[in-house]
């Protein structure tokens, strides 16, 4: 059983990850973290903090994916990128958040999501291009960033 101190230390970053995945009010992110905690503590890994953290994040990403979180109601001060982020496929969003927000290396992020490094890079690139394209669409501009096009 992992000790309470190590679990408590992970809670703030888990909340941040969940909030970024949901793009929703914090209450829903907290609910997601709670479900992940219950799921992981039912069968906790051996005393290894890195493994525990990875398992919690993986469970969060999985929960966010299978629960197909409904799109939050748009608010007046919602940033256009926030809307674009929610429109991304769950797997792409998780890859982008793990690398850009959580600061994971490609290796760590791939292990967390249970995918290969190549698939992770593909999702990450696609997520960045899709975000840029959505932003362009919102601004009413032309689609400038082609999807996975080779450039010289």
């Amino acid at each position, binding site marked *: 059983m992992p000790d*309470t101190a190590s679990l408590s230390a992970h809670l*703030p970053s888990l909340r941040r990850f969940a909030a970024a995945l949901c793009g929703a009010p914090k209450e829903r992110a907290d609910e997601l973290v709670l479900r992940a905690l219950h799921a992981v503590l039912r069968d906790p890994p051996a005393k290894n903090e890195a493994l525990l953290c990875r398992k919690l994040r993986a469970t969060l990403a999985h929960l966010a994916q299978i629960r197909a979180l409904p799109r939050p109601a748009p608010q007046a001060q919602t940033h256009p990128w926030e809307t674009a982020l929610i429109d991304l496929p769950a797997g792409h969003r998780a890859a982008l958040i793990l690398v850009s927000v959580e600061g994971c290396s490609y290796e760590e992020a791939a292990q967390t999501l249970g995918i290969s490094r190549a698939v992770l890079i593909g999702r990450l690139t696609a997520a960045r291009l899709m975000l840029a394209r959505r932003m362009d669409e919102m601004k009413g501009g032309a689609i400038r960033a082609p999807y996975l096009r080779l450039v010289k």
Partner: protein
Amino acid sequence: MTPPRLITDAELCAFLDGELPPARASDVAAIAQCNGEMQSKLKIWRAQDQWLRATFAPLAHEPVPDLLTQALPIERAPPFPRPVESGPAHIIPRDETLKWKMISLTLGALLFATALYASGLVPGTAHGQTITIEKWMDQPRSLRGS
């Protein structure tokens, strides 16, 4: 003339995240300097990353709600350490028990020998004259005594 080198979006992405090998990273940096499209992509992606970090990073500094802290397992105090070598006070070690057994056995034997001697059952220790049983049987009944 050097052949044109291709850089994929995936490579550009890995370059942005510092995940390219150093040799390839310097190649990509050199090519990106001369390519306006790549530069604009890098600029947009950097802006995305900055926005993501600025939006979600403060959440990690907020206090965690009780709902989550109460879900953590309660730590139990470690079990009280039992003295392994000395053992509980009321139990006497095996060596001590054996010693007292030997002492009590010796005292018991001494007591038994003293009692035997005092009762006159040991030959030659009885009070008065000692005679054989045949002689005793030959004596008239009145002289036999009790």
